[in-house]
């Protein structure tokens, strides 16, 4: 556990060294959120609420969904795994006294925590001051949202690891990254909430684990569901976490048998 925390801390500190990069990322995220809010302003023009969702709620969805609950990091994990395999660094990773997926999780968690603190929070504050930021529907909804946030980040990382580990067989992490990017763009509800999806597609998207990345946490934050439903779905989300973790363990153990280290 101390090794895990040390890796989280090292990754956090590494991110903190690149200050100009951090400033650019804040500007970039502000632009991205501005685009999302502009889209919702444009489509809501002259409408009060659509499917019971107001423009104010959609601004919150765009703001928090595009920062704290973004699925963008997932593609970075796939890319990292691909690079580790392509460069042969996986050999030295196997020699370390900690499992590679666990190290990857710790490093990504450090990066994610840094992003939340120094990119997401400033962007939420700035855009919240400009466009207004609705608070969570109630205190219990707020507490549940924190639980959903943890489930969201773990599902993103485990999904990305699972996809990335397939690089051991297909050797083309770049393509896997694009496949995942396309999948998550729609099914996480990152840009468009699933409540606006056509019937059949909405049912499928709600059932898949990707909807716990952005859609379900935001639905809880905005109070779209009662507390019983929210707790029930948080438990389902934890079930998905367990299933994905098991899948990562199985795929990793098989992937280890694929590694052949040539000479030294």
């Amino acid at each position: 556990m101390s090794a895990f925390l040390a890796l989280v801390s090292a990754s956090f500190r590494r991110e903190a060294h690149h200050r100009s990069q951090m400033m650019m990322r804040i500007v970039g995220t502000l632009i991205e959120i501005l685009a999302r809010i502009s889209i919702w302003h444009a489509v809501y023009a002259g409408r009060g609420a659509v499917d019971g969702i107001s423009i104010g709620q959609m601004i919150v969805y765009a703001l928090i969904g595009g920062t704290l609950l973004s699925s963008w990091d997932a593609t970075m994990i796939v890319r990292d795994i691909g690079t580790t395999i392509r460069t042969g660094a996986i050999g030295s990773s196997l020699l370390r006294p900690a499992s590679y997926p666990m190290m990857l999780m710790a490093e990504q968690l450090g990066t994610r925590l840094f992003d939340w603190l120094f990119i997401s929070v400033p962007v939420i504050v700035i855009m919240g001051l400009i466009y207004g930021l609705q608070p969570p529907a109630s205190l219990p909804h707020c507490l549940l949202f924190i639980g959903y946030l943890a489930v969201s980040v773990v599902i993103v990382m485990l999904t990305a690891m699972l996809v990335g580990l397939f690089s051991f067989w297909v050797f083309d992490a770049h393509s896997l990254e694009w496949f995942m990017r396309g999948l998550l763009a729609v099914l996480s509800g990152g840009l468009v909430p699933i409540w606006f999806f056509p019937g059949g597609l909405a049912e499928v998207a709600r059932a898949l684990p990707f909807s716990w990345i952005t859609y379900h946490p935001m639905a809880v934050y905005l109070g779209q569901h009662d507390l019983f439903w929210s707790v029930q779905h948080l438990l389902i989300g934890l079930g998905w976490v367990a299933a994905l973790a098991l899948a990562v363990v199985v795929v990793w153990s098989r992937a280890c048998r694929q590694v052949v280290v040539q000479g030294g």
Partner: protein
Amino acid sequence: MRETLSLLFYLVRLRVRTRLEFRASLVIAWTAQGFGYAGVFTSIWIILTRFENIGGWSWPQMALFLGFHTLGYALGACFTLVQLRGMEEIVRGGEFDMLLVRPINPWAYLVFSGFNIEYGGHILLGLGLIVWALPQVGIVWSLPSALMLFGGLISSAFITASCITVVSACALVLQRARYLFGLYFDFWELSRYPASIFAPVFQLALLTVIPLGYMAYVPVSVLLGRPVPYLGAFAPFASLAAGPLAVLAAAAFWRFCLRRYQGGGG
């Protein structure tokens, strides 16, 4: 001049032949990238099926817009993105010093020797959307509108190549440019939507200092007969001129940075 052109063509042929050695991987890359873009376009389609329009643009019009944007981008990026995205590593690793002593322009060498045919997915998706959308948007075809379509696409490709060149040239002076590519792509994502939905300051930025509004918004608006804020009747000419002007500006900026290049150290 003739020898240089034949050398550049030879470099492209070499690169294409190398990439074609792994055909299955190439087809997977095309499919994957097409799928990645289709995911985002599906989200936009969902918005349009639920809300009917974005800032007055219907789905067929948006499909034409997205197809134009994707195709123009792919045509410019296949010559520049992958080659110049790693400019800071090229500079810091000392590889750029070696390029400077070769008897060929370093930019031309980098761009043509790294010609990337992995944009097949983008091109097929872009063409597919344009071919699907064109019969549905009621464009009255004439010589000027045909010129607008093809000239606008070339201009869009020029803008892409110019912007990527400008960002990569920063690495010659700053030795770091990768994070600037992140910023470029944030603005690039803005240009995937009609500029008219953004605040006036962003509309102006996309039509002036960051000319990504000319990648699709201005030419497609002209084709559809939609008014373009700030440009008005000047829009068709501006759309065709933006690409070549961006190329001139990028070439000047590249030379400016090259004059200040002092090596990667080490």
